[in-house]
């Protein structure tokens, strides 16, 4: 990777992390999603097609990683930007499933760094409370942005940008050591492909933990599953069916509850 590519990607790692300057809606929830991140990395590295292909798989895997502050919070942007970049750098000459397998491994490495740095920034932010308290005590309404925005961002930037540059630079250095496609033994790339396919279950499993609230909900989940396996519908077609079902469900549900109110 060129230096400008490393700096640009590291910058996006920061922007897509929790609480960056562009806000969680544009940052964490948009730039931090693997699908979006892969397009950006693809544009920076000049290979959009492969990047998005990898991004789709990572997106499924990390579908469950949504809530900052929740149980699965760590900086996903690390996993996705570094995962896609790593796959593009090392995956030259490999076929698609193997490139995806590589992306999974690099995303794992990035994710680990992300988890550590998330905890570091969480701890470093603590003393900011003292600063905020001091300004509040003095009634300085015009200075309340300093602890939250200025200091919080300095810590956030340092915890994301710098480690990302280090990881990306060492990746580039490692890739210069030889042609990885020929060094990696065949069984490793096979295992990576198998791993990548199974990892999708992780994202789906975590999302299910948000959605399965009643016992019969499993049946609705199975309905979506069977529409694909038995009826051979595409996911897009199932999404349309799902929207129609949901609207009917909503209408039925509200009309039942309003009837109940009338009889009371």
């Amino acid at each position, binding site marked *: 990777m060129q230096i400008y590519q490393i700096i640009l990607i590291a910058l996006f790692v920061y922007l897509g992390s929790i*609480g960056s300057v562009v806000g969680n809606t544009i940052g964490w929830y948009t730039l931090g999603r693997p699908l979006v991140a892969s397009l950006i990395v693809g544009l920076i590295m000049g290979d959009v097609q492969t990047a998005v292909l990898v991004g*789709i798989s990572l997106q499924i895997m990390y579908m469950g990683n949504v809530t900052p*502050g929740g149980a699965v919070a760590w900086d996903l942007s690390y996993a996705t930007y570094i995962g896609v970049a790593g796959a593009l750098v090392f995956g030259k000459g490999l076929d698609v499933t193997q490139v995806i397998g590589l992306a999974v491994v690099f995303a794992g490495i990035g994710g680990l760094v992300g988890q550590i740095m998330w905890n570091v920034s969480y*701890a470093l*932010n603590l003393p900011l409370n003292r600063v905020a308290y001091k300004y509040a005590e003095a009634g300085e309404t015009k200075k309340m942005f300093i602890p939250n925005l200025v200091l919080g961002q300095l810590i956030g930037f340092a915890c994301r940008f710098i480690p990302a540059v280090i990881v990306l630079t060492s990746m580039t250095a490692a890739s210069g050591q030889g042609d990885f496609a020929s060094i990696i033994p065949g069984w490793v790339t096979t295992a990576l492909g198998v791993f990548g396919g*199974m990892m999708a279950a992780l994202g789906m499993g975590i999302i299910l933990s948000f*959605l399965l609230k009643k016992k019969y909900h499993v049946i609705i989940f199975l309905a979506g599953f069977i529409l694909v396996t038995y009826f051979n519908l595409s996911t897009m077609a199932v999404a349309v069916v799902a929207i129609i079902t949901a609207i009917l469900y909503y209408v039925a549900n509200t009309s039942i509850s309003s009837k109940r109110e009338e009889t009371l």
Partner: protein
Amino acid sequence: MKKLSEKTLKKSFFRWFFWNGCSQQAESMQGMAFGQSMAPVIDELYEKKEDKAAALRRHITLFNTEPQVGAICNGVVCGLEEANANGSCTPELISSVKVALIGPTSAIGDSLWVATFIPILLTICLSISQTSESVAWLGPVIYMLVYPLGTGILSWNLFKLGYKSGIEGMQGFMSNGRMNSLTDTMTVLGLIVVGALTASFVNFTLPIQIIRDVFDATKGELLTNQVIFDADKIVNSIFPKVLPLLLTLFVYYLYSKKKWSPLKLMGLILVLAVILTFIGYATGFYA
């Protein structure tokens, strides 16, 4: 009578919308961000330094919600501060209302918006990207436009709703059965889509097969290396993709019932993948 100007409200909203997560930590969570968002409001409502200080102090304390849907809290608190400046509310009430808002807004925000709307939108964009390689870029582009714009509009309207109708309005919004119906509906939508995603994306094959040389009696010749038993094919002919389904449900069980961390689950999947690969090579499934 003091009244907050539209400009101040917008200032307060945008500070929250963009910088709600800037200084998240374990002590006050989003407290400092909330304080920053309330600063222009406090500046406009109170004259005396002591009043400003007291107001700022009560807004840098612990606050934590799903910030996008939770913008309604900021709206409600703006309304309450306005009432307080006019003498018709008390600081104690403001603080207790704020704490009371944390639970319901984060529950609705997390389950309805974050855990349901985002996956559904992502799924639709994923399917668009998948339709053909030449339009793969279209999925992420649509997501980048729809999600921030849609969320921004939702957030601003919830903020205004909170400010205008106050705590009563918010109770109305959340307690009439409509909110529950909406959550249920989104759950149904999400479940169907996640079912479809599981079927299309989770791969889990059973790489066990037996290869033998078979003697074809009708032609009288020896056929070499014929697959006479393929475990994966047999399993799939009974119920297509049953293994990916079981794996997903197993991960769900470990994550939500046994409280395994995602990292631990990743480790388990890695070990399983390596074992399966070895079995596959041993039986000749992977050549």
